[in-house]
């Protein structure tokens, strides 16, 4: 039974070689849809390669909220042959992909370069519409209009814009919105480029309209002007970057690594105007240690990385914890593991490592936001937690979230307040009474800001006494272990439940889905489809991984008649955490570990398969 969303959404894919500019084009397209009042969700897949390998950008739009993609493609725009049929012919054993033709929904359409001279029979489909467009010829035509006839070789990258124009022409979308989007993108010195691109869209749309009489089944229209909302198009790395600036970030350190680099590069660009220092380090060991040094000096400090970099931060992590540094906050953008793994693909397989990032027992906080808004608020709050509890914090994110585009209403920042935790006020400039690691009931010892008289302290990665000097005494050791770990209880007490987990849907339901992180969007979107099977459904989304809200989660799960865990990893890492913390073993697992995010229908089909076939574990992969 199709849901409203599945009936009304439009799924568009632009495929082509890496480095060929498909990102920019798809994002302009997404902007044009957003400006038309549509809700837009867009995600990209690409190889760990600079140029040439296949990449594709999928834009999903609907007049109602959409936060996920479906396998079905309503309109495929192929810039090369490989986007259509994959690379099976070239690769001996396993193809890296099999192209997108088979994903096109019946009644859907394919736009491709007529110059590829593909025999329509090759598509093996008689249920779809083919639109071969002579990209080069149309481009030539458009360039002529702006007095640049004969220069299409030079402007060959504008083939992409021709593809956009053809999309607009065939799907029947409002050209003017596309022009707006283009002009918005090419401003100031680039205004000339804007007009060239506008012309290319116009020519392509005209060509498409005039050469093809068949219109695809599924078409796309802007919402009525009066219903249009002012939405931005934002990616996860931007939400995190802005949140960090808002939170008062003073120093961001990083070492380049996919998919974390985008966030740091964003901060590098925006930082200076806000007095935020961004340093590209020599490696991740330096990154975390610089951030720790800065945190100890009283500056809010962060570092961003992915699994391989986080692996190098282990040692620093324990150092931050034992010295009770107010941070750093480590932004861990998960990608396909293990090891170097799949650098540009997504996964949720670093949870258990983030929970046990170093040797010994020490406190730290791990939070995993599920969408743009949570990324914003969790990134913001993580600095408050670091300062209040004087411990390192991990914000666990995903490649999928980093690089996906979401149309989003303005983020409500009114409840987000800076809290720097307890700062010690010295009675006198000698500060003889000051003890950096004073034993207190809640475990928190007020800190000082180096440079201030009366605040001198020492601290060390060795076990230490309240004054921060090395001691191996037994009594002190016990007191120090307790005070450090007590802070975790304090944090558990003070962090509001709303930051810990969300039970989406009814309090009680026939079926409870359990998940974390950026699978949130696909699960929320899938719920109505699953409800159509006749079961009421709710969804327990867990965000705070440490300190874990054990009692609340246990209560919800013990009361749930049927539970399905959904994770984008092999080993059901949240499942392990839940069972460790509550003793509850979830009924079914739906897992995906192919390096790609869940589509909405993978969720639906995975859950259905688990329930109908009574399988403990279902692996899905439609990619």
């Amino acid at each position, binding site marked *: 039974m199709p849901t409203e969303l599945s009936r009304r959404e439009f799924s568009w894919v632009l495929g082509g070689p890496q480095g060929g500019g498909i990102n920019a084009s798809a994002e302009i397209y997404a902007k044009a849809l957003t400006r038309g009042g549509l809700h837009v969700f867009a995600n990209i897949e690409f190889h760990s390669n600079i140029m040439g390998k296949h990449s594709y950008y999928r834009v999903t739009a609907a007049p109602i909220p959409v936060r996920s993609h479906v396998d079905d493609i309503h309109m495929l725009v192929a810039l090369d042959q490989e986007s259509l049929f994959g690379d099976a012919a070239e690769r001996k054993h396993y193809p890296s992909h099999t192209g997108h033709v088979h994903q096109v929904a019946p009644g859907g359409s394919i736009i491709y370069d007529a110059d590829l001279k593909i025999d329509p029979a090759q598509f093996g489909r008689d249920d779809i519409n083919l639109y071969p467009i002579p990209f080069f010829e149309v481009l030539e035509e458009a360039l002529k209009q702006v007095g640049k006839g004969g220069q299409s070789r030079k402007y060959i990258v504008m083939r992409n814009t021709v593809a956009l124009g053809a999309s607009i022409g065939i799907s029947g979308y409002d050209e003017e919105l596309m022009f707006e989007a283009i002009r918005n993108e090419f401003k100031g010195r680039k205004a000339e480029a804007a007009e060239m691109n506008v012309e290319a869209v116009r020519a392509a749309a005209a060509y498409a309209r005039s050469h093809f009489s068949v219109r695809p089944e599924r078409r796309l229209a802007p919402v009525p002007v009066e219903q249009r909302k002012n939405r931005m198009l934002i990616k996860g790395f931007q939400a995190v970057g802005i949140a960090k600036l808002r939170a008062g970030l003073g120093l961001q350190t990083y070492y380049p690594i996919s998919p974390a680099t985008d966030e740091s590069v964003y901060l590098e660009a925006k930082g200076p105007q806000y007095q935020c220092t961004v340093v590209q380090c020599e490696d991740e060991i330096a990154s975390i240690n610089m951030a720790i040094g800065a945190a100890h*000096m009283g500056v809010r400090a962060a570092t961003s990385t992915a699994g391989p970099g986080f692996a190098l931060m282990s040692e620093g992590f324990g150092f931050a914890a034992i010295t009770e540094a107010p941070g750093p906050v480590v932004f861990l953008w998960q990608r396909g593991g293990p090891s170097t793994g799949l650098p540009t693909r997504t996964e949720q397989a670093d949870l258990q490592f983030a929970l046990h990032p170093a040797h010994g027992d020490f406190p730290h906080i791990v939070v995993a936001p599920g969408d743009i808004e949570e990324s914003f608020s969790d990134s913001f709050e993580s600095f408050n937690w670091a300062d209040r509890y004087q411990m390192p914090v991990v914000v666990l994110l995903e490649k999928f979230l980093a690089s996906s585009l979401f149309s989003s209403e303005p983020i409500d920042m009114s409840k987000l307040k800076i809290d720097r935790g307890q700062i010690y006020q010295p009675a006198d400039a000698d500060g003889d009474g000051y003890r950096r690691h004073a034993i207190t009931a809640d475990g928190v010892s007020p800190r000082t800001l180096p440079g201030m008289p009366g605040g001198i302290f020492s601290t060390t990665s060795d076990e230490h006494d309240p004054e921060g000097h090395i001691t191996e005494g037994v009594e002190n050791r016990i007191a120090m272990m307790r005070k450090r770990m007590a802070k975790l209880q304090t944090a558990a007490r003070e962090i509001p439940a709303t930051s810990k987990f969300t039970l989406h849907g009814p309090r009680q339901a026939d079926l409870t889905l359990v998940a974390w992180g950026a699978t949130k969007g696909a699960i929320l979107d899938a719920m109505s489809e699953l409800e159509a099977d006749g079961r009421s459904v709710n969804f327990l989304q867990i965000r705070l991984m440490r300190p874990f809200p054990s009692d609340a989660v246990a209560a919800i799960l013990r009361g749930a008649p049927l539970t399905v865990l959904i994770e984008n990893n092999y080993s059901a890492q949240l499942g392990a955490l839940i069972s460790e913390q509550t003793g509850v073993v979830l009924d079914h697992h739906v897992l995906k570990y192919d390096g790609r995010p869940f589509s909405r229908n993978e969720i639906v089909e995975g859950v259905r398969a688990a329930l109908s076939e009574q399988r403990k574990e279902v692996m899905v992969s439609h990619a």
Partner: protein
Amino acid sequence: MPETAAAAAPKKFSLQQYKTEVHVDWCPGCGDFGILSSIQQALFQLQIPPYKIAMISGIGCSGKTAHYVDTYGLHTLHGRALPVATGAKLANNQLTVVAVGGDGDGYGIGAGYFLNSGRRNLDMTYIVFNNGVYGLTKGQASPTLAKGLKTKSMPEASIQEGINPIAVALGAGYTWIGRGYALDVKSLVSLIVQAINHKGTSFLDVFQTCPVYNDLRTKEWYAGEDIGRTRIRRLEADPTWNPVVSDPLSIDEIVEKKTRALHASYETGDNLAVGVFYSIELPTYDDQLATKMPALKEHPLVDLPLYQRDVQPLFDELA
């Protein structure tokens, strides 16, 4: 020399104020005592307020130094003093940041930071306690121990070349490079004062005796009791010695000075050069950051108003 002038002026901070009451737990006769005392005296001479100093140390016998100097002190991880110090300086460019650590700490596990910190040229000082062994882990060979040497703590002689820290520092781009001797406190104080006064990253390697594990590089050996003259050669004793690049834009002068410094650094065996090997004034990393963010010229990052930022323009860009 700055310290002579300073020495004459009345002192606001007493030497005692640079010392903590923590029990110093080095072995009797350890060369570290000389370095500790030199650091304390240098800071005293410079009269830097103790609360404006951050001593940042690695792990090793040498790493304990941070506990004994009464300033802000971070006794960090093995090999990580430099990155922590870098972060500290970036957070507060008005602090005098002094990183210290062992030769294993700096040239072994920390070699990557030793190399890369030279390029950065933040205004801070790095002092390496070079005793040829891993003291705290009981006397294994450190990276400076020359091939073929075998201290009493080693089962067999080293089969790797020793590193030449001065040569590496030249290649890495340090803007002030010196070497001292732990038991010549007077000269060492002067070198530390110069190193701290230098604008940019100053690197000071210090020959340090470890009477417990290094029975080759002993006090007597440095004094040259066997050859009847000291093995320590003071660069400054050579009237032609001038390590300072007078025109930092002259590639020729730079190369010439570096080449000469390299040459001096290879005087090993019975002639161990100490003193200033190389010095050049180049824009520091701090300076260049301040060019991008002029507020840093007035206030350290930690004092800037970072908590009321208007991020609306960033959202607007995405609309």
